């Protein structure tokens, strides 16, 4: 979705990239499936006090809990909202159950439905289809689930509209000097997120002269990426395969922080609002939480 003129991604600071691309009221997808979650970008959005966002993500986890708790979100489009293996997202729950800090509109799908929506968006199709939702209550509470009939067999299939976020944000391991981006290992729906979005920001661990072949190596050519920010450990407490390990201790300690509104506010203030950038955020943490950033 890049005009003919801009053929190369631009290398920017994360602060500049967020300032330029993420506006109040935008629909924003920060994707990453356990692996390569763009935490640093979420923090920067909080620092810049964005509001009224429609947040999209298959698996909203701690970073979305923080965005919601800090009042950045008007709406959430998602399929599974939890702190995997560690507990609940209490800021998300408080928003849904008690409208704290304010009401949160939700639009929920299954993983297969969300993946299909991203695929349709990346494919330039108005909708995607899947064999799903039949018999569930999801079909009745989510207006973006409809039905199509196969013109050959007559089978009814679920139809879901394409996702087209204003901004897609992902992490990848590497960029090369031409601004091509490479990620590998578990790559989730990140390629589709960039291709479905009007604008895109990619956080990378480092810039390299040349990519090596990798298991499930996915390359995004420079000309489909808008901004690249070099942010080492930008996915912390998630991980970047071959660069860091997942900081499970961080996930475990989030449960009590998230549960208590005052504690949450103090934590966000100390570690996000009062830090200038991601490096300062990492510095501000208890070293025992950092885990192994050298994967």
């Amino acid at each position, binding site marked *: 979705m890049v005009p003919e003129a801009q053929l190369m991604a631009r290398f920017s600071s994360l602060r500049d990239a967020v300032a330029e691309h993420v506006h109040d009221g935008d629909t924003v997808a920060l994707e990453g499936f356990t692996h390569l979650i763009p935490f640093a970008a979420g923090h920067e959005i909080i620092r810049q006090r964005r509001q009224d966002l429609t947040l999209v993500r298959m698996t909203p986890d701690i970073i979305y809990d923080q965005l919601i708790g800090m009042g950045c979100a008007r709406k959430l489009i998602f399929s599974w909202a939890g702190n995997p293996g560690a507990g609940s997202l209490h800021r998300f729950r408080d928003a849904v*159950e008690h409208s704290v800090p304010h009401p949160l509109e939700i639009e929920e799908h299954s993983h*297969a439905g969300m993946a*299909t929506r991203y695929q349709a968006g990346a494919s330039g199709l108005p909708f995607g289809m899947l*064999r799903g939702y039949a*018999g569930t209550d*999801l079909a009745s509470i989510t207006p973006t689930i409809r039905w199509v009939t196969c013109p050959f067999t007559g089978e009814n299939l679920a139809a879901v509209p394409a996702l087209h976020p204003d901004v897609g944000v992902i992490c990848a391991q590497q960029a090369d000097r031409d601004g091509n981006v490479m990620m590998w290992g578990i790559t*989730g729906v990140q390629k589709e997120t960039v291709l479905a979005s009007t604008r895109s920001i990619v956080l990378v661990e480092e810039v390299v002269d040349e990519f090596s072949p990798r298991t499930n190596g996915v390359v995004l050519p420079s000309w489909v990426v808008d901004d690249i920010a070099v942010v080492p450990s930008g996915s912390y407490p998630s991980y970047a*395969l071959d660069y860091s390990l997942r900081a499970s201790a961080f996930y475990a300690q989030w449960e009590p922080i998230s549960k208590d509104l005052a504690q949450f506010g103090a934590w966000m203030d100390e570690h996000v609002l009062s830090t200038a950038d991601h490096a300062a955020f990492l510095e501000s943490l208890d070293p025992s939480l950092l885990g192994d950033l050298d994967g």
Partner: protein
Amino acid sequence: MAEQSVDAEARGWTRDEMMTVAAARELTSGTTCFVGIGLPSTAANLARATHAPDVVLIYESGCIGAKPDRLPPSIGDAILSRTADAVISVPEIFAYWLQAGRIDVGFLGAAQVDRFGNINTTVVGDYGSPTVRLPGAGGAPEIATSCARVIITLRHSPRSLVETLDFITSVGQGDGRDYRAKLGLPGSGPQAIITDLAVLRCDPETSEFVLVSVHPGVEIADVLAQTGWPLRVADHVGVTTPPTHDELRALRNFVGA
């Protein structure tokens, strides 16, 4: 029905361990299994470490044939992608692998389940103003749709095995009988509910779940008391084989206990 740790110590295993072991036994070697995080992942890996070395574990993160040697804390851990036969994208795992009918067994957890194995993981209370907002659907609705069969695991209580679900997130046997066939759902749906107290199986005629086995030390009356609907009881209710020494060793080794 909280477990007294003194009981567990006397037996040599906890009820959660019994649940995991019983769930693992549902998998046979040569089965392809779609694995959610938590107990399903533990049970599937236990099966792989014991009686079903050739079970193929498929994680929704895109890892096919993962062979972790310790419990991964999430469904997207490095140990899964590093040990997998193939790593693919999330859209592909749902379209080409799950929806295409390539998976034999889906393992699902649940916050609430009803007598037909329908599952709620969305809300407790009213959807618009819930008492408890749960994580939501994740991969479960289509796992329930497309796997050849589904095994449900959850802790037994009247709050989890309920008369009426607050929300149907994933369809089991619907309202029973040939509900799935009428709806055109390709898989056979849930065939077993494995809890920390008992094993329930789907009656092939009515599609209602029936108590077929209680775990050692559990009475049928305990199970009935902990079930939120008038649970049907099989003519002959067995006692689940307790965890073997090998099963416990493999399980504790895997979870790092």
